[in-house]
């Protein structure tokens, strides 16, 4: 029951195989891609710089004789609450949990590293799951690969569930997960046809 890190270039990706489930986890950091090997974190614990904001707030807390003063108090409090909220909803890791016989669960864990405060879980049962696809999409000025689960409801309408929607890992990770999950997905509906794979040129 060991956590494997199959990709050397992407150690933020880990796989856990147990008897009852398989977990594919992508953590919210990566190695600097300029060759230095430094760790680039996108979710950080509470650092001393964050404490400066409440400090400045308490120093500049306005006196309450004027209306402008109390309005400023309200606005500053809201800003402080918003700031703390953004620090506590950083994405820590996102996972795909595959439960053989049942389905696939997509999870997002948010909080203040290393504590998890909120989790968002979406379950796709095998009866609804149609296919697993890697596609490319335009995100603002960037073009990223994304892994998506196709669901077909009872009405026949196809809906998409994007895996790892916040982290959007790069292609090598997605390819590894896709290849591992092919057999789980194709074991489902017999009419699912596997198309010829793309190959490296």
């Amino acid at each position, binding site marked *: 029951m060991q956590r494997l890190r199959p990709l050397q270039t992407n150690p933020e990706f880990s796989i856990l195989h147990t008897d009852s489930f398989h977990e594919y986890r992508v953590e919210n950091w990566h190695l600097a*891609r*300029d060759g230095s090997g430094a760790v680039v974190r996108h979710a950080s614990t509470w650092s001393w710089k964050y404490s400066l904001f409440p400090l400045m707030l308490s120093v500049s807390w306005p006196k309450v004789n004027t209306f402008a003063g109390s309005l400023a108090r309200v606005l500053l409090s809201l800003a402080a609450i918003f700031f703390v909220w953004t620090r506590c909803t950083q994405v820590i890791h996102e996972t795909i949990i595959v439960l053989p016989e049942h389905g696939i669960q997509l999870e997002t864990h948010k909080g203040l590293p290393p504590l998890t405060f909120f989790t968002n879980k979406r379950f796709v049962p095998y009866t609804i799951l149609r296919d697993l696809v890697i596609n490319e999409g*335009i995100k603002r*000025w960037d*073009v990223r690969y994304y892994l998506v689960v196709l669901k077909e409801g009872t009405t026949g309408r196809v809906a998409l569930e994007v895996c790892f929607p916040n982290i959007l890992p790069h*292609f090598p990770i997605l*390819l590894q997960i896709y290849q591992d999950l092919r057999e789980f997905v194709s074991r489902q509906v017999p009419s699912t046809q596997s198309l*010829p794979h793309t*190959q490296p040129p």
Partner: protein
Amino acid sequence: MEPISIAMIADFFHPDVGGVESHIYMLSANLIRMGHKVIVITHSRPPDRVGIRWLLPGLKVYYIPFVTIASGATLPNFFTFLPYLRTILIREHVHLIHAHASLSSLGHEGILHAHLMGVRTVFTDHSLFGFEDAASILTNKLLAGTLRNVDAVICVSHTGRENTVLRGELFEQSEDDPPRLVVSSNVYVIPNALVSKRFQPGLLQKSDTITIVVLSRLAYRKGIDLLVATAPRICAAFPNIRFLVGGDGPKLIDLLQMREKYLLQDRIELLGPIKHNDARSVLIKGSIFMNTSLTESFGIAILEAACAGLYVVSTRVGGVPEILPEDMISFADPNEDDVFRAVSEAISFVSAGKHDPIKAHERVKRFYDWAQVTERTERVYHTVMKSEQRDLWDRITRTMRLGRYAGPIYSIILLVDCLFFLFLEWWMPREDMDFVTHHWNHRRFASATQGL
């Protein structure tokens, strides 16, 4: 030639239907067959044709979110396309950009930005334009600015080449004494082509009525006014003539009104918009094809009709005289009387049985072939890839020579472009991009499908 990665950039691509669109698609498909990697960049058609899609045979199309203003063309701008283009060219490892159509601002921008990423550029011009009216003067200046630093220009006919050279100022002062103007050596003529298998002639049918087919967009440029003026005269002079008109456009009203006025409902049949796949089935219903365009750079519709075995009557404009031999086409000046004369000649020629559709098809099959066109285009690419890239100072000095006002304006655009590019290199570093390592492997697809 070794395989390279090519990006075709144009505003005009499928799902819109037209000559430029199918030219880009057929050229891309043939280049893929020769082993190159081709992608297409165009603007999105919301709500559903957005993002990145694949077309057979392994052609990736990027639909970039830009708003269109008129008939599928986006607003001319100089910087908004750079971030998308930079991301796409770097992640796809593109060597060469091929931009199509003078009215496509995405293509122009692609040529202006490509040098920042070390990518070579080729431009293909598909249409003829005038010089006199205000719109032409402005768009010609824009074209001259773009073509100042392009690596190669391809035109679809010799007339088109003359027109593009004059509009885009593709000439230089030679070093002779006295100095004269010499056309740049990087302007080529490669005609369009057609898939002749799709335009086989129909079975010969002996009948007294001769059907004249007209298949075109019903717009002013296509000379529908001439058709409206001459059709009643032809119907009156030749009782055994029928017209078959396919296509749609703003001038449909005029045709309907003419039909009502002269009571020709049983002589002129209007079919409405025809899909390109159904064009052949409409063409083989007739024996004469009539084209009354006021301007035509190449005339692929005429070729398709000639390939399907029809005798062609056309106005002598633009590049039309270059495409077919004299005995397969009758020319007319773009006025009523001459068109009437030409059609009468055509009718007597065809009634006498002197036109053989099968032989015509065999001849046209050998004239224009996609494999030849692709091979010629590949040679242009090869020449471009081997030539040296101009450096930035060279580009700036060349751009300054555009004109007293246009020169400095375009140079400022070029410099701001460089600064924006430097900003993007800092904001979105190259190493963080999601590079494309897996692409459609055409050879594997071919071997898999041939095994079936």
